[in-house]
């Protein structure tokens, strides 16, 4: 099966700054992908490129084997929910469903109906809560029977309960269709709950990518006495090091099990792993003007 989403050296520049650069990744069909990264990491840019709202500055992107920018019909089986679930606020719920039916050939009323039954169809969208809006937007996207579903920060405005309901609806909807799902979120806890594949962007570049189980299996926390570091047998890369007193903790990417008994080896959770990759190795030193005398603001 061809990959659901594939990019090669993809880049997008706004003015002088690159929002996304040198992005090469392959998202296998059927995966539930967490697109993680801090704010302004390029997550939304990547999704906008994937739905053809943006044109790549360089490189290539293909969605379900088609070019979303040049091939106007590529979005037929791509579901997309933008940030804050954009909907026509003056429409009623029923009219929003009618809009989706009118603009999609493959629209399946039954697929959406199940999810939207809980929303009364004469309610105006402007009166819906953030959670209801998010569910409506997701229902419209699921009604397309998408092979690829792209969600941009779906949890940003949702309280924990609404977030859980949204996730439940998402998983129910996707279970029936085997769709590939990409969830962009800066909250790593959201991603941890459902995703089996991770793409971590920082500063517009892909920092980490891969299957969650394999990533967790290949990363370990090593704790031991502080010492000058040479090569540690089995460690491919030290992602981050932290000193506390005479102890030091290393997050290491392994290629073989650690045999050195002077290290105590622990597993790491996905959230900690992502945070470790997001944190720069050394905190940037404050610039001169930030070190000025403290002022009293009273």
């Amino acid at each position, binding site marked *: 099966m061809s990959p659901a989403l594939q990019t090669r050296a993809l880049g997008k520049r706004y003015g002088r700054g690159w929002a996304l650069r040198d992005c090469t990744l392959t998202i296998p069909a059927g995966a539930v992908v967490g697109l993680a990264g801090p704010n302004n990491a390029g997550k939304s840019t990547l999704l*906008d490129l994937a*739905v*053809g*709202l*943006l*044109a790549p500055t360089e490189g290539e992107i293909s969605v379900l084997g088609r070019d979303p920018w040049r091939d*106007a*019909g590529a*979005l*037929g089986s*791509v579901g*997309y929910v*933008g*940030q*804050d679930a*954009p*909907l*026509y*606020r003056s*429409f009623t719920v029923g*009219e929003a469903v*009618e*809009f*989706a039916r*009118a*603009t*999609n*050939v*493959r629209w399946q009323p039954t697929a959406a109906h199940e999810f939207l039954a809980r929303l009364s169809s004469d309610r105006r969208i402007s009166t819906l809560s953030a959670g209801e809006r998010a569910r409506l*937007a997701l229902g419209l996207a699921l009604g*397309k029977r998408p092979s690829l579903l792209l969600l941009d920060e779906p949890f940003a405005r949702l309280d924990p309960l609404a977030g859980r309901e949204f996730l439940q609806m998402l998983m129910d909807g996707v279970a029936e269709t085997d769709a590939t799902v990409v969830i962009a979120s800066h909250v790593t806890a959201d991603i941890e709950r459902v995703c089996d594949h991770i793409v971590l962007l920082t500063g517009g570049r892909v920092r980490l990518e891969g299957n969650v189980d394999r990533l967790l299996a290949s990363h370990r926390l090593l704790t031991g006495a502080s010492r000058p570091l040479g090569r540690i047998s089995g460690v491919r890369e030290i992602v981050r090091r932290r000193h506390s007193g005479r102890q030091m903790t290393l997050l290491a990417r392994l290629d073989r099990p650690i045999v050195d008994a002077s290290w105590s080896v622990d597993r790491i959770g996905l959230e900690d792993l992502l945070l470790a990759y997001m944190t720069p190795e050394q905190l940037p030193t404050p610039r001169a003007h930030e070190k000025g005398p403290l002022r009293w603001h009273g």
Partner: protein
Amino acid sequence: MAWVTWRQHRLQFLIGIGMLVSVAVAALATGLPMHAAYHRDALSACLPPTARSGCDIIVHHFQTEFGNVLRAVRYLVFFPALVGLFVGAPLVAREFEQGTYRLAWTQTVTRRRWLLSKTVLLAVATALGAFTLSALAMWWRHPFDVLEGRMSPSSFEVEGIVVPAYAVFALCLGVFAGLVLRRSVPAMCAALVGFFGVRLAVAKLLRPHYLPARHDMATGLTPDSHSHDWVLNNSIVDAVGHQITSGREDLAILHARHARIDASEYLLSLGWHRAVTFQPGSRFWVFQGVESAVFILLAAAIVLATVRLLQRTPS
């Protein structure tokens, strides 16, 4: 897409119908008495006004009585521009303002079809509305058209098939401005300026030349045979055809007064006479056709540019 267009523009549609109805009511309220007076005075038998004695008085009376309402009809030239402002400009701009382009342009319908269906449907509705308006204006103005012709800009631009053509052009210009500026109000302003700029340029620079103008050398100084024509130039020329400036004309008239001779006879004795450049009123429908074609072609070019821009510019 028809349902989507209807749902998103039904308020504007109803406002448009409301405007048409109020214009129709106003036209009937003022037009019926005017038509009654026209038939009562048997004005049609008075053409030209010199046909029989007393006619010029009847015609003059009719013109002063209904002249005020006639001036109001001229404001109908703003109608097409309003359509462009209120229907065209927000078409794309509002999607950007509310962020809903992320919804509209990520469905199966391509952006090109989205834009073309909406524009074409709205253009048809606009053209029908504008045509109704123009028919009303033609019915209303009929007595004046008989008396004064309909070739001069104040009547030419509110009658016939140019009204729908202007309206469709204004709509397409509004859509284009909305896509370029991405905000409704600036797009409305830009479309307004653009619309009147183009209208003025066409009226001043192109329309006089749709067909070669006719020239008329009147032996007298006061022409009255061109009341139904569009007079482009009306000046006094000397025997070899050089135009006499108004300064020289005034000087000559002053001279005649001092010499206590009749001014017009004096001017004639100098070999001066009046030269009129005009477009005859019989060319009304030809000019309507050419001007409509100009604006429809402009509208088509703008739609084409809008589609290309929409496909090319990333949001």
